[in-house]
């Protein structure tokens, strides 16, 4: 009989242990606080203008540039002037229409969206500019100064697609792009040659090279950055640069015909 009593006692002990374990577990769970989400939007990260650095440079095209083809615009008599294919604009070895921006190195910084609108103008059945940089959420204003109807049709990957008609002299169309996207094509279905690219980035540190191939990024806080040079035809090049306070460095890039 003792044997049995012992067995029963043993099981009782186990039970007690188990109960204890169960209780302690519960207490532990209660100590944890329920999650609360931070609802407020992140405020722009301030940059000390005293330490701001800058990067500038020029972009070259290596090799002989093909002569830009002329576009036949006879399809629409309303398209005046002459128009060249803008996929590769090289002047004296200087490559235009290269979008330069800080690809990495800004961490989680956020920036204020400029109040001014970026403008795309349709004039002479071509887009001005051919390559545009904007910040996410920045207003883009599309104007039509041609005496013909255009339709503006961006075909993005990450943003929403739309396609709107704009008769001559119509009010400008105002749009924003919510998500980062590089080389977002915009076209006009009625004038198949019309094409441009919008680059949407999260920071204000971007530039498009002009006909002289030059660019400049100002107001950067010190740090290690990756600069990206993006060209619609020639692809992307990345370069690393380290900026100390008030630095102003030169970073050049050079593209080759592929």
């Amino acid at each position, binding site marked *: 009989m003792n044997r049995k009593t012992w067995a*029963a006692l043993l099981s009782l002990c186990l039970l007690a242990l188990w109960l204890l374990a169960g209780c302690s577990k519960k207490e532990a769970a209660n100590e944890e606080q329920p*999650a609360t989400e931070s*609802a407020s939007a992140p405020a722009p990260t301030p940059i000390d203008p005293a330490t701001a650095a800058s990067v500038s440079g020029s972009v070259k095209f290596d090799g002989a540039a093909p002569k830009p083809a002329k576009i036949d615009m006879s399809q629409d008599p309303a398209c005046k002037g002459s128009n060249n294919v803008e996929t590769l604009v090289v002047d004296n070895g200087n490559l235009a229409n290269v979008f330069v921006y800080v690809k990495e190195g800004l961490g989680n910084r956020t920036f204020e969206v400029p109040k001014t609108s970026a403008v795309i103008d349709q004039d002479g059945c071509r887009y001005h500019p051919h390559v545009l940089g904007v910040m996410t959420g920045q207003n883009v204003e599309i104007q039509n100064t041609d005496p013909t109807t255009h339709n503006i049709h961006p075909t993005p990957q990450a943003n929403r*697609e*739309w396609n709107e*008609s704009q008769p001559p002299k119509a009010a400008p169309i105002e749009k924003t792009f919510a998500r980062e996207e590089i080389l977002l094509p915009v076209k006009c279905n009625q004038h198949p040659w019309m094409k441009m690219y919008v680059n949407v980035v999260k920071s204000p540190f971007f530039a498009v090279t002009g006909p002289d191939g030059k660019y400049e990024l100002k107001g950067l806080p010190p740090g290690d950055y990756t600069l990206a040079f993006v060209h619609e035809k020639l692809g992307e090049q990345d370069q690393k640069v380290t900026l100390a306070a008030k630095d102003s460095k030169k970073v050049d890039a050079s593209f080759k015909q592929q």
Partner: protein
Amino acid sequence: MPEQPIPEQDPVVTKSYAVHYVVAMAILLATLFWALWDESFGQRPWKAFQHEFKDRYLAFLTTAKSKSQQSQKEITQSSDYARLEDNYKQARQGAQPRVDAIQKQLSDLNARILAVQNVFTDRRAYANALTYQIETDPSPSGKKNKQKDLDAYKAKLATVEFPDHSKKQFNYGQLEETYNQLRDQRTALSAELGEALKPVTEANAKLAEYVSDHMVDLTPAQIEGLHKKYADWDPKILQINVADANIVDRCESCHMGIREPLKITAAAMTLKGHKKPDEYAQAFVSHPDTDLLKVHDPDKFGCSPCHQGNGRATTSLEKAHGNYEHWLWPLFPKANVEAGCQTCHAADMVLVSGDVGWTISEGKDLFRQKGCNGCHRYEGYDKEPEELQSMTQQIKLLEQQKKDNSKQSASLMKQADTAETNAEATRFNEQAIALRVTNSKIDGQVQQFDFRSHSLMQDMKKIAPNLKDIRLKLNKNWIPVWLKKPTDFRPTTKMPNFRLNDEQVHSISAYLWQTGLTDSLPKQKAGNAAHGKELFETRGCLACHSIGEGSQLEGGTFAANLTRVGEKANYDYLVRWIHNARERTRPYCPYEKKDIGPEDYAKHGLPYQFDLQHSQCPNDGHELQVQNMTVMPSLRLSPEDAQDIASYLITQKKQEPSSYADASFMDDAKLRDEGKKWIRHFGCAGCHEISGFEEEGRIGTDLTVEGSKPIERLDFALYTEAAQRGGKDPITNPDDLARLPGGPAKGPWYDHKGFFEHKLAEPEIFDKGKIKSEEEKLRMPNLHLDQEQIRALTTFLLGSQETSLPASYQYNPSDTRKDIQEGWWIVRKYNCMGCHQFIPGQGTILMGMAQYKDVQEQLPPKLLTEGARVDPEWLRRFLSNPALSTTDTNRNGVRPYLKVRMPTFSFSDNELRKLVRFFQALSQQPIPYVPEQVPTLTAKETDMARSLFSSTAAPCLKCHATGDDAHDLHATAPNFLLARERLKPDWVERWILDPQAISPGTAMPSGLFRRENSQWVFAGPTPSSFQGYTRDHSKLLVDYIFQLTPEEQHRVAGAMGRTRAAGPARNRDQQAWHGNASATGGGSP
């Protein structure tokens, strides 16, 4: 006894059991408490879940509420809201004095009514009691006396003291009258109050509507309601009980967030300070697809019909999810969750709702596309042969009935002739006539069945090539190399690897070669390979076929990869095939079970001509198989184009065809029988047409309910133990191992999922280690599927269950939804989705190709609203002949500007009917379609419309084709002249108002019209004639388009000054094509 015993206490009597009892009772009590604890907590883990949910959800609600308040604030700060609020305030102020006055009156009145009521009801009760006594009094005198009493009582005056302390006396009649009057007054006043308040309530409702229209989530008040509900939450079982279907699902006892009106994510339910959501947080999320729940109301469906598991169990996670040994319906794994769709939607081919359903749809498609149903029967797949059989059966029955009827009719007429009276004779005659009419109806029915049989014959397809043409088509020496391991030659091929040994390869190829047809093919001129390449890349071949290998691969996987086609194919055959793949070398007669040749036709003096119009066997009149049983359509290429493409393809090779080792053993007649044996053994005829195997049955098991097969019936062979216990995965071949969706097994995989996945990844795995003869080995070939495909097929098979749900839960609709079900089978059969988008979010093969990236207008049209867009009768014509012309066929009928070509599929009447109904049903359009009457425009209206049509603000003809070649070169939209027959006016109006809503990404821009005072007005400048025009401008334009004549279009185009006149139908060189015979042709209208 030597000594006097010392008196001693008797141990039996004195022994105390107190300690024993105390200990035993203590333990007993402890076990009792244990049992109680077990009952209330140990067996109720969901209580902990509910406590946890309460805490976390309340915290979540608090943040949600502040967010909601934020957005409500934003809404209430808008000017629109302010305006509405203003309106509301004004209305309230305006109504206030009147409302106050009425309310004052009402409260006075109520007091008066109360005063009268107190007296009146008391007196009425007495009078009623007295009346009852009169009614029931048996004696007339008693009645009279009591009546007197009653009258006296009614005449007696009663005093009513009104609230203003004035007193008045009434007799019963007056009292009643006063009471009713007062009540009428009250009703009238209440109505007046409502009237006075009406503008206020309306303004208030508008205000509320504005908020609810603009709030994406719940309002703070609603969230507060939720908060209150859960703040006072007491743990309780939450269950769905559907008695009819024996569904008891208590899943929500733990998964409390599933149906919450707020979207709950695991991250939101994670405790602060924890990165990863714990078990609780993962359990508390809301259902990922609420739309799905709207269709499948959980109150009717519960959870387990879709997800399985043990809905009743609440004692532990394993029990509730059914993941224990003895539960037959364990929860579908997350990766295969869509298997649940199959349990009820077995009849659907495409099952997509939002994000859900792509996997199971893919699995269902793969089952057919990969030829699984060549060996495995599965209910719903490959129905044509079965339907054909039932059709034959029914025809037989009807013919018997007809015979009986005519017999009876003859006998009736005989009776009529000998009838005694005329009336009787007439009766007999009439009966006889009725029977003859019945027979004529039967004739009609039989005719219909005949048509359908004809269609079914046409609909029967095989996924693999016709091997009767092997001698005409293939490089002989290539065949054994291919059979040995098809993937060595073409890594993406559908032809699976049967693990044949050399003897089997030799004998099989010998049989095929020796039984192949030896007819001669017309010699073809060499074509222009460069032009062929361009055609191949632009005509749409790549929607089904692919070219290039590995990372260079481009195109679809529906059909063969053509990278090395030059090594195997015969040029002449290739030309014929490209020009019209359906063209058959010899027709096949299923009745005689042989291929009919010219000699058979000659015997009966008939020309050797067979096509869809000439499909009767010359020997016995039975329906012939006159087409190749391939789904490859005709692209209506000119013979030269076909030659060009073939010339291009024949250059596609890695090695010379002549470099293949000699395979003259294929002529060895001795191998033939052996080959026949192996072909039968491996079920080659499931996918291929092979001489002598036309009637071959399936060799595999029926998979219709494979998912509910008892696990013991799935043969894990030597790996039963390994599967039950986990451990190293038995698959060692790295290629096959890479196919397993979850990678090599990490734990036990002794379940259906594990079996299906392993079997699909390496079909011979359950032969491994076994010693078997060639005949006994598993025959299932390696389909070299990738992880996603295996996942999809496993999902499909897991869902293939014999369900215990009532039949009403099966999705077998009989209305237009059935048309949708049936249509998808055809859409998938012909790979329509390779070119066209049917469902938002569905990608097509062509959409993914680089060449269309910048010229999306060159893509085939999206068919998202096709049924609403086109006239079904036109659609039928278009589908049967996409050129919309019998002469000018080398073009697209609607969009001549597209390089990619809508092919001619030679749909049978049956499939045409189903497809048209499918598109109509998909867009909720009624059938038959009665076209809307378009009003004839007045001359003035025509002028106005023309001004819109040719406005520089909407230069329609800039993009739309006009029929003028020079102009159409740049056109990106169809010709308006087609509209009248093709389109539905209501759709056209919707289209021009907002094309982006109908076909996202279309070249047609939005914003041509704008809404102005409930009228659609042209967005560009309009001439003065539009002054005071009240109809929608868009409507006007549509009417104009539907009345557009070629002349008018010509005129307008001319006026716009750029285009030349639209000429009459162009005369392209029509070269008669002299092949054997054309098997294509439009479906007979």
